[in-house]
């Protein structure tokens, strides 16, 4: 069951990695998130070097997002115009992120920075989602019609220039807003090895005011491009993409993504958001513990070359 990874330079149990891919793919198909926020920490947990885990999970995210995006595209649930601006921002963000990543690596603070950002984002996004979904489920239980959220961008966004229509989302919006959101998520993609869907999806709903029906597909659309760019940047700059590891993750990931999408179709949306919220909070608590509990290994060794 052991297989040696040429770039990570260690052997792993391949069945475990495929199972990991399956689990993460399932989550990704179900919630429209890339699932990198699960893959990277889990890979590091199996002993794979953090840099290799970040880079290889970016490759896996590309695969599972393509797999998911295809289905959404066929159901016309992708706002390609909006996605284009998100991608443009995302590519700029990825390049900025790669510079930031290298700088943090030199300072020796890459792990703790990633850890803190993770906890902050997972906890705040998870908390918001939890509150919103519990309220929605309660309202449904009382037999009230679901609270109609005013579908419009948050205040202030309408002051940005070059407003233009986004017919598929039914919005008139400045392209600067999705560009900035994409840029921000692009930075996250590169330094954390995540697709950023868990930030992107709520931001598109609550900040840009996009309809829920196109949010997941558009998020996946952007993740495909930005994670592919992240893979290329990692491959050319740090040679940390382990293609064998990525392939093992992909095998499980693409299958899992399809199963997840099918499961999601059978569950009510607010229940789905509740599960995602709980998952995000769970991972946040787990990471908070690793940051605050005395680590088993106080020392770490980094090659001084490069």
């Amino acid at each position: 069951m052991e297989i040696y990874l040429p770039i990570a330079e260690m052997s792993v149990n391949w069945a475990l990695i495929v199972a990991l891919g399956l689990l993460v793919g399932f989550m990704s198909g179900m919630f429209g998130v890339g699932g990198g926020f699960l893959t990277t920490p889990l890979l590091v947990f199996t002993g794979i070097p953090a840099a290799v885990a970040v880079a290889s999970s970016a490759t896996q995210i590309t695969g599972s997002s393509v797999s998911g995006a295809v289905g959404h595209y066929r159901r016309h649930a992708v706002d390609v115009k909006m996605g284009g601006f998100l991608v443009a921002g995302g590519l700029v963000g990825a390049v900025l992120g790669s510079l930031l990543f290298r700088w943090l690596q030199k300072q020796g603070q890459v792990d703790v920075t990633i850890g803190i950002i993770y906890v902050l984002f997972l906890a705040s996004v998870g908390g918001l989602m939890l509150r919103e979904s519990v309220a929605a489920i309660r309202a449904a239980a009382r037999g009230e019609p679901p609270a109609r959220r005013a579908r419009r961008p948050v205040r202030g966004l309408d002051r940005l220039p070059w407003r233009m229509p986004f017919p598929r989302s039914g919005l008139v919006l400045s392209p600067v807003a999705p560009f900035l959101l994409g840029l921000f998520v692009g930075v996250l993609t590169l330094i954390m090895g995540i697709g950023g869907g868990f930030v992107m999806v709520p931001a598109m709903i609550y900040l840009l005011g996009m309809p829920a029906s196109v949010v997941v597909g558009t998020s996946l659309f952007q993740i495909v491009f930005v994670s592919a760019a992240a893979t290329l940047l990692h491959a050319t700059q740090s040679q940390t993409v382990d293609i064998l590891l990525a392939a093992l993750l992909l095998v499980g990931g693409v299958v899992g993504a399809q199963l997840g999408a099918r499961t999601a179709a059978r569950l009510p949306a607010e229940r789905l958001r509740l599960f995602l919220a709980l998952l995000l909070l769970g991972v946040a608590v787990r990471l908070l513990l690793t940051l605050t509990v005395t680590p088993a290994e106080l020392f770490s060794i980094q090659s001084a070359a490069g």
Partner: protein
Amino acid sequence: MRGLALLLFLCLAIPAPAAPRLVTELSQSRIDISYRFAGAELLVFGAIQYPGGRTPREAPGIAIVVRGPTEAVIVREKARVAGIWVNRESMRFETVPGFYAVATTAPPRDLLDERNAAIYEIGVRHLQLSPVTSAGPDKVRHFEDGLVGVRARRGLFVEQPYGVRITDDVLFRARIPFPSAVPVGPYQAEIYLIRDEQVLARATAPLIVDKSGFERGMWLFAHQHGLLYGLLAVGLAVGSGLAAGNLMSRREG
């Protein structure tokens, strides 16, 4: 075992020199890392050739050191800042072997005095790691201990105080374990004959640890053609994603 018998025969047959000599052999001169590599074990064996074939009364002391390529590393220590564990202090070491194993007939401190142990780097404690720092010896020691501890727990620094087996005071052998995360590069096995805290004879044998076949190809590809490698990775991801996506939506439709 036939090798051992042959060595024994050779030792007895060849006219003995004035000082003792070591005749050694490795079970393999190359460790190949293939896709099924999950660690390896190297057998270091040989014989002591005494002048005139006269074996001394007391048992010989043997130390076997296997070391990998050295590199410069930065060791960081975590400390708690506002409740969170962050890397605080660091120290650079210029010559840290990626792998170091020592097997001896008795603990190194019983075989050798401090000076000789340091000269020949016998024992993990006696490695010359070349710290680059203006800090005092206590702090250097602290970071050295940290470095050694991490490497030891990963099986990259190995000490086997009674790891050398001696047969008939002439033949010796030791098994050196390599973990799967062993670094690649040129290695060297060093065998020392020790008596009265002095090194009487020394022999070395080269060893190569390298990736082979697919693993080697992939590694070279990744390092020599980064962009192409990246495109291949993306292509693989997009291809498998499209395949799965299309397959499933066709089944639905």
